[in-house]
């Protein structure tokens, strides 16, 4: 059921997917790991689309150097917790959703509990060790992981459906060297929006997801490529795990 305000707010997208689609978004719970460059556009677009419950996790405070790309945070937020800043903006941009903002470091002791009953995990992290952790949780819970990564003008995105598609470890078994990476804000803007688009279509059950495909964005050439990717039968994260398929789960929604 939708209030009059919700019907007005979502009117233009309910032209696309009707009450049923909007209800699917409203019932959904999406976990966003990171409230930074990628997490900002992902969270904003999922919020305005009416994703019923958004849990967003970050352990940092807003720094001036974040502000060229982390559009959830404003100049006045410098020094405040990113989660406080994010929750305020998301709740303001859409008061009809529930926002849980958790000021905590994701680690192996809490990742499973933090994700709880979420329908999907958005990887908006800036490091591979945490990505591997989210990857393991997604596999264990059999929920999709919407991967994104950026550097400079370049970005990559793919949607991982456990046991069906390659997982993060299949594709990237070794992390790149850690660095303070250069980045211009439009790059996470583009990749984060691709991730949010994946989440919305996964929840709606429509369209072709970025599964078994790595989307690669080259902002210098304004050119997008994609590379087919395959599971690694020897992957130590997802190999040998078989339960109900993601496609079955998606159809159940």
């Amino acid at each position, binding site marked *: 059921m939708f209030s009059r305000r919700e019907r007005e707010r979502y009117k233009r997208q309910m032209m696309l997917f009707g009450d049923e689609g909007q209800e699917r978004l409203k019932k959904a719970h999406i976990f966003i790991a990171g409230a930074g460059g990628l997490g900002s556009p992902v969270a904003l677009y999922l919020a305005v689309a009416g994703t019923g419950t958004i849990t967003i996790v970050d352990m940092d405070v807003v720094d001036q150097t974040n502000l060229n790309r982390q559009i959830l945070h404003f100049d006045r937020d410098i020094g405040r917790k990113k989660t406080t800043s994010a929750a305020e903006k998301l709740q303001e941009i859409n008061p009809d959703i529930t926002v849980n903002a958790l000021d905590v470091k994701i680690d192996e002791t809490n990742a499973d509990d933090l994700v709880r009953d979420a329908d999907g995990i958005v990887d908006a992290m800036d490091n591979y060790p945490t990505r591997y952790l989210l990857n393991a949780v997604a596999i264990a819970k059999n929920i999709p992981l919407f991967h994104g990564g950026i550097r400079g003008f370049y*970005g990559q995105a793919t949607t991982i459906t456990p046991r069906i598609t390659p997982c993060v470890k299949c594709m*990237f078994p070794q992390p790149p060297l850690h660095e303070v*990476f250069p*980045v211009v804000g439009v790059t*996470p803007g583009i990749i984060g929006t691709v991730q949010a688009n994946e989440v919305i279509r996964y929840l709606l059950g429509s369209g072709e997801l970025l599964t078994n495909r790595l989307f*690669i964005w*080259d902002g210098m050439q304004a050119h997008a490529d994609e590379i*087919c990717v395959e599971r690694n039968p020897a992957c130590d994260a997802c190999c040998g795990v078989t339960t109900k398929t993601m496609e079955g789960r998606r159809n159940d929604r």
Partner: protein
Amino acid sequence: MTVKIRFFAQFRELLGTDIITDVSSGMTFVALIQTIAKKNPAGYTAIFDENGAFREFVILMKNGKRIDITDAAKTPVVDGDDIAVFPPVAGG
């Protein structure tokens, strides 16, 4: 015979992309990419370590299928191969 090599992200900045080149029969992936990367020392060191082996995070694809970098030294390229070489990007 000819093969096509596509570099991505910072490898592309350093070495270009969509490189179509003639290769001799039996040439391995390592030898091919080394030959091309040597045109720019910064590109070479981004991809290879001091022993001339692929850095462990480098992703190597042949015709859409991943090749383990440890196999790249013994895997020959063949006519028409479409090869992609890229680093995972880590930022968020």
